[in-house]
């Protein structure tokens, strides 16, 4: 099916600003799903609140637009009662890691089968440009007029430490890699985290003089490198892209099925 077959065209053009990286994530995600040849009815997209979370309204799947930061908790309920469904949970960096941080690490710990996409634009877009836990030290935001003194999480390290069995990172510039990674993440059985370095030209870009959307993507082009590349050794400031973790681990819903078996046996 052409990717337009996966969207709700009547709502386009979407509400995102010109050049918003979230649109590129949408673009990539649709292509990944198309390549996987999945049917619309087997996909559930659960999102929270934020510009990024509006993505759920645009895709023609089962879409659950929840409350800020809690998407993964809702998704857990959906997945546990319908394990055959494929859960995709796109979240903004604030949604996933500020207010939603606890659900993020606990979902990872349980290794419940779903794909969490962190659309990281390093800012709160929807509310107009406040700093997020991924903005990083020294950045400017409407609530950090004297520059931000908060350190940023490393999404990859946090997800890994919390127990996610698939952890990857890409950017809105590297759309082909992104599509490929999203495919792997969706196929992976267990909790997968894909961080996408995205751009908010309207707020993060303007506040931090990062130029146009294209300029911000240029930055990702020039300041990232494949995982374990030697470029990284020469220049530690480079951000690594690619798959960081991919391991076989018992998946939560399957484990629970065993519990049910045991419980029913005991009973009989």
């Amino acid at each position, binding site marked *: 099916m052409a990717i337009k077959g996966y969207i709700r065209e009547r709502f386009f053009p979407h509400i995102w600003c010109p050049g918003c990286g979230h649109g590129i994530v949408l673009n990539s995600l649709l292509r990944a799903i198309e390549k996987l040849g999945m049917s619309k009815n087997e996909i559930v997209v*659960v999102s929270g609140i934020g510009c990024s979370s509006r993505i759920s309204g645009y895709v023609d*799947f089962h879409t659950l637009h929840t409350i800020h930061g809690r998407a993964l*908790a809702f*998704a*857990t309920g*959906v997945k546990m*009662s319908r394990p055959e469904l494929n859960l995709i949970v796109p979240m903004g960096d604030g949604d996933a890691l500020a207010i939603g941080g606890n659900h993020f690490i606990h979902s990872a710990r349980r290794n419940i089968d779903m794909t969490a996409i962190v659309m990281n634009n390093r800012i709160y877009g929807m509310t107009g440009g406040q700093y997020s836990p991924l903005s990083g030290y020294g950045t400017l935001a409407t609530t950090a007029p004297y520059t931000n003194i908060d350190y940023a999480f490393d999404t990859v390290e946090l997800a890994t430490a919390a127990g996610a069995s698939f952890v990857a990172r890409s950017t809105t510039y590297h759309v082909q890699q992104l599509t490929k990674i999203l495919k792997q993440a969706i196929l992976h059985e267990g909790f997968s985290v894909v961080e996408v370095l995205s751009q908010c030209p309207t707020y993060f870009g303007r506040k931090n003089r990062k130029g146009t959307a294209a300029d911000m993507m240029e930055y990702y082009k020039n300041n990232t490198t494949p995982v374990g590349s030697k470029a990284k050794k020469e220049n530690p400031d480079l951000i690594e892209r690619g798959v960081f973790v991919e391991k076989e681990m018992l998946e939560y819903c399957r484990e629970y099925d065993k519990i049910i078996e045991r419980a029913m046996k005991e009973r009989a």
Partner: protein
Amino acid sequence: MKNQNIKFIQGNEACVEGALYAGLDFFAGYPITPSTEIAELLSYRLPQKGGKFIQMEDEIASMGAIIGASLTGSKVMTATSGPGFSLMQEALGYAIMTEIPCVIVNVQRGGPSTGIPTHVSQGDVYQARWGTHGDHAIVTITASNHQDVFQTTVDAFNISETYRTPVILLYDEVVGHMRERLVLPKQGELPLVERLRTSVREGVDYHPYLPREDGRLPMSDFGGVHRYNVTGLFHDMWGFPSDNPEVVHDLIRHLVDKIRNNVNQIARFKEYYLKDAKCILISYGSSARSARNVVEYLRPRGEKLGLLELQTLWPFPHDIVNEKCVNAKHIVVVEMNMGQILREVKRAVERPERVFIANRIDGVFITPKDIRDILRVIQGKGV
């Protein structure tokens, strides 16, 4: 010889029995005294019937999980107490807005804040009605003994499915923890309302938020043949966000009226000796047991005393209460808070100056003597 259908258990266990009888499939929760036994027992019982239990990282996540599960067609429940109930308020509003059936049990303990966790109170009555932001309506039910706990739990699921609304089961520590007899009804003995599923076939345009003539909203299991959108934003009949004033107005009216206009259908109550009662006690939950004791004690001693035991607290059955109380000289609300149902009774009855309160707010379960002492004062008899 032992009757397999008779059990000697805690109120919290009776609630579990009721939930399982009603067809509970999924429970998500976070432990908190005095509700924890509900989660503990369900972690054991649910998988035995192929159902699922999960202990989440907190109460917010628990609400999220049950809402998600309900959307796929499961009957769901969570259980908590005051502090957890406060945390659930945001997600509770989401369930109200999206009209997703779910049952929330709040086994009340002493508040505010951490309060007295192991002592009884009925202090969350108003929070159950107004705890989440924005205009809304909600159903809240309680009970005073295990047979009624079972029955009201089943009711809660039925009402939740019928009106597609969260229902709060507002029990209290005394009922939750005490043990007494429960006679399990046979399957089929109590009517069960199952999820009303849409009859719209695959491919035909399904409107998840277009009520039928009878006001009910048929559901399509999430993940099924109909793809639609669910959002906590105001939304149109397809479930898509809208700030069109007409859409907003109609939705909020629908959400509130579907409950308000059915206040009498939702009302559950019991009455004792009301016909000729000069003085009527109005109570609910465990305090109704002490009130009942007082009535049974004073009737033989010649006092024209009656008891109206409320089970449905919200929507508050104003007309019923008013009508039951027309001839009473004194109306005394017996509760373990500072007068929450008292407020409603005063709003409900004519000549509110007839209405008094016999309460206790120190964490101690109100005794018949407490009530009798206050009664005498109200009746002008002095101590």
